[in-house]
């Protein structure tokens, strides 16, 4: 009754996307009929996409059975409790978008509504002081969360910083151990089948022809198969997110070892700072209409905390998404599917999400149209939701200059407009189904970017002033007394997951 399963899966491109895909799909080989093969060229450098991640990465690693300490020790990894946004709202201002939750709800009323009420009635501590992840981050401390929901430590959430090249190498070992076959070579030609326009095979520089039933395009920005062969088309989002270049350089590690990413707003873009065990990753994302490559490089080098290690690398990109991430028998995963700047560290998540949806809709040899259209629909939605969240950062600012003025005055997507309006009225936030960022994430950024509600949910008034005061004071005390007792981030790493003195070579 069912059509024959897919026989040969060919992944074109290594790097983070390629090896994440290979490692996750390798389980399909257990059925005995599917074979996974990955082609990568040692000549083509991989782009170290966002070496910072968001909490769902632990689910991906968990699915593969990866041990956290082992993986961090082999990728120069550190822990990440959030992102600090410096100068985004206005110069001199800074806020944290922490992972984990703020306080806890009472009587079915959201904590932040109680906090908004407390704030309306008198002086109370800033919102961030009610979040353990944020409190620990600023003290440079870390401990994994507790599983006991009564323990204040259970409110903590975290992700990782790591060297994306080493992560790819780590997953390569995992995938190869599970039977994925790696072929070294550069794809020089793509052959299509006459009858249906599907990809029949790719030809390598060596002359070898690799045939397959399903091709996963992990070739990066250029989309060797999805665009080069299938001409999927691209939806350009530069009118909302106009940055189109980046320049990146590592620098020497500095102390203390921060357990968070820092993003600093600059004249025509922003600069990232990602702490690893052996060095710090830095880069400037900017808009080429407003800043030259030379000036960008100078700005970056002038704003490093440690000595630069190596030459700055320049990258170009176009923000937007492939109109269809799956065409025929080609599925694009990673940069080939679309690009959103790593302002909220979503690059690796978008890979993970593409893999997850491909597994959920994995085709058979008949390639039902219905699975393809569903995949494209779900991926489009995911890209759009992340896009809205990024636009919010750029849109609600008081910064000067043509770049920032344009972003402040532009028309934003209707979905985002409605969200801002609901928050500006009574601080209300609603999460939609399947949405990546939840209420606390939106709260951190809406508040951080200076959106101030006119009022709060009238339900918060149903508790007495004393009850609200007591709850806020108790929560604050619990968090502020717990955070200083956590181990220092650097000490925790030293004890549990320190990298070996000589890190293994990056394969690419």
């Amino acid at each position, binding site marked *: *009754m069912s059509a024959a399963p897919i026989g040969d899966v060919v992944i074109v491109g290594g790097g983070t996307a390629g090896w994440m895909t290979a490692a996750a799909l390798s389980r399909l080989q257990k059925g005995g009929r599917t074979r996974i093969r990955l082609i990568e060229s040692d000549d083509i450098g991989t782009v170290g996409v966002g070496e910072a991640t968001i909490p769902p990465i632990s689910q991906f690693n968990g699915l593969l059975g990866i041990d956290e300490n082992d993986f961090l020790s082999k990728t120069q990894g550190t822990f990440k409790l959030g992102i600090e946004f410096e100068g985004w709202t206005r110069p001199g201002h800074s806020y944290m978008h922490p992972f984990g939750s703020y306080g806890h709800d009472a009587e079915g009323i959201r904590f932040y509504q109680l906090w908004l009420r407390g704030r*309306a*009635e008198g002086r109370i501590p800033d919102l961030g002081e009610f979040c353990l992840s944020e409190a620990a981050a600023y003290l440079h401390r870390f401990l994994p969360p507790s599983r006991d929901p009564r323990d204040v430590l259970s409110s903590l959430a975290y992700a990782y910083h790591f060297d994306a090249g080493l992560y790819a190498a780590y997953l390569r070992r995992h995938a190869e151990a599970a039977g994925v076959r790696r072929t070294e070579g550069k794809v020089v030609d793509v052959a299509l089948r006459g009858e249906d326009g599907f990809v029949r095979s790719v030809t390598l520089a060596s002359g070898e022809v690799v045939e397959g039933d399903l091709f996963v395009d992990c070739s990066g920005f250029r989309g060797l198969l999805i665009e080069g062969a299938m001409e999927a088309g691209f939806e350009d989002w530069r009118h909302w997110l106009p940055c189109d270049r980046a320049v990146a350089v590592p620098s020497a590690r500095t102390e203390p070892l921060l357990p968070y990413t820092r993003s600093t707003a600059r004249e025509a873009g922003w600069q990232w700072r990602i702490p690893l065990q052996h060095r710090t990753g830095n880069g400037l994302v900017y808009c080429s209409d407003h800043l030259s490559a030379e000036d960008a490089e100078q700005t970056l080098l002038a704003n490093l905390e440690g000595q630069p290690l190596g030459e700055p690398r320049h990258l170009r990109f176009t923000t937007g998404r492939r109109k269809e991430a799956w065409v025929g028998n080609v599925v694009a995963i990673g940069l080939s599917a679309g690009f959103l700047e790593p302002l909220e560290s979503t690059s690796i998540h978008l890979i993970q999400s593409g893999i997850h949806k491909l597994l959920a809709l994995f085709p*058979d040899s008949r390639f039902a149209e219905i699975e393809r259209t569903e995949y494209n629909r779900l991926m489009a939605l995911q890209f759009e939701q992340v896009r809205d969240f990024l636009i919010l950062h750029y849109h609600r600012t008081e910064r000067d200059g043509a770049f920032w003025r344009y972003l402040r005055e532009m028309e934003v997507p209707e979905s985002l407009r409605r969200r801002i309006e609901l928050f500006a009225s009574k601080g*209300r936030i609603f999460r939609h189904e399947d949405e990546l960022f939840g209420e606390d994430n939106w709260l951190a950024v809406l508040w951080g970017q200076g959106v101030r509600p*006119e*009022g709060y949910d009238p339900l918060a*008034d*149903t508790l007495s002033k004393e009850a609200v005061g007591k709850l806020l004071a108790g929560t604050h005390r619990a968090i502020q007394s717990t955070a200083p007792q956590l181990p220092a981030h650097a000490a925790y790493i030293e004890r549990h997951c320190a990298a070996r003195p000589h890190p293994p070579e990056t394969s690419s």
Partner: protein
Amino acid sequence: MTSGLRTERIAVLGETWEGWLCAAFLARLLGRMTQVVVVPTPQDAGAPPALASLPSMRGLHDAMGLDEHDLARACEGTFRLGTLHEREAGRSFVVPFGAPGPSLEGAAFHQHWLRLKVQGDEGGFEPHWLGAVLARSGRFLPQAEVEGLPLPEYGLHLSGAAYAKFMQRAALHYGAKRAARLAQALPGNDDRIDALRLEDGADLRADLYLDCTGTAPDAAAGWHDAGAAPALAWSEDSTQPNLSATRMRLEEDAEDILIPLAGRSIRLRSGGPGGEGRLGWQARSWRGNLVAIGAAACRLPPLEMPQMRIAQIGIEALRGLLPNGADQRVEREEFNRVTSEAYARLADFQRLHRILAGRAAQPAPDDPLARKIEQFESRGRVVTYDGESFDQDSHLAVMLGHGLMPRRYDPLTETVPAGEARSRLKQHRRAVLRAAETAQDQGEVARILHAPRRRSAGGGR
């Protein structure tokens, strides 16, 4: 920033079961800060002889401090584990609440069954679903902790008149007031009500008015019409086939529904001409300062007994968007968006039943139902949207129940060897059987629950 609750009074139009439910909920929620007044109107609809709730209604009752056992005791209640749909030729299927089983190796539980089914050597799905087995056999298991099976969930079957009385007592207990009957609503500017003129001559002013009269304005602007309402015929029935399930039969041009209460059953025949008004819902059930909740906002056929859920949708949306003072624009727009989406999904769920039963036209390609059916038919993937009343498991039960068999299955299931999958499903079925054996017959549960007690029950705690 403004502070302080500036909603001094909420007037609930309609001394109906929905009106008292809203009043009890708001009075409990807003305490003594806001006065809640129920105003009887000449249009007030009577309580239906029977109501049925979904498991999600428990959250609303909990928030009011009401225990569902107390409610059941006061309202001739029985515990509803699902709906038993009788089809032609003695065939039937159950739409239970709760999940059938845990996912395995990244594939949903039902996919593993589906794989063996497609390969041709597996029986029906229902024996794997504890909720379905309990619903069909008239049993009840309030706290199952049985070999990793998901806990069966339940709603209630209730007497409508008793529920209205119960909610009235609760509302008055929590401080709501009852005013004199409405003579006339006095209009103000911009679609707003300025005040209510009562029969005793007094004018009642409120910050917010709720329309809980149970009477929908036919073909008002923004009315999403879903056809003429069918005639409804209620009767009492002494047969009590099964206390754990609502029994539902789709006939040629009617629906025949049996709702088991403690000690008697209520029969509802729905169909044919002669019904009152139109079916459908208001795309803008909040206009000016008047919010329609319940049947005043949305009227659907009785398939799967949606009345309580409709009221719940309005109440929960209002709870999340309570306004403060006169400027209610932001709340109103979001409320209308959220509720009309929820009413549409609920109507879709009923339509899904009828389409699969061959009693409604196939959906057009851009109909959201088309995607649900196609995705399931293709590979057993269950799709739901924002604003659903029934979850993915309920959709699964309906589609399988009507005999919609997916052509293929999730290939991830193949990472489990077929022999192992077969033996795991067998183990699961055994666990379901064992759990069902430890469950109580609901006739016995009802006898204990409804036994005469010294203290009078009900009224809130």
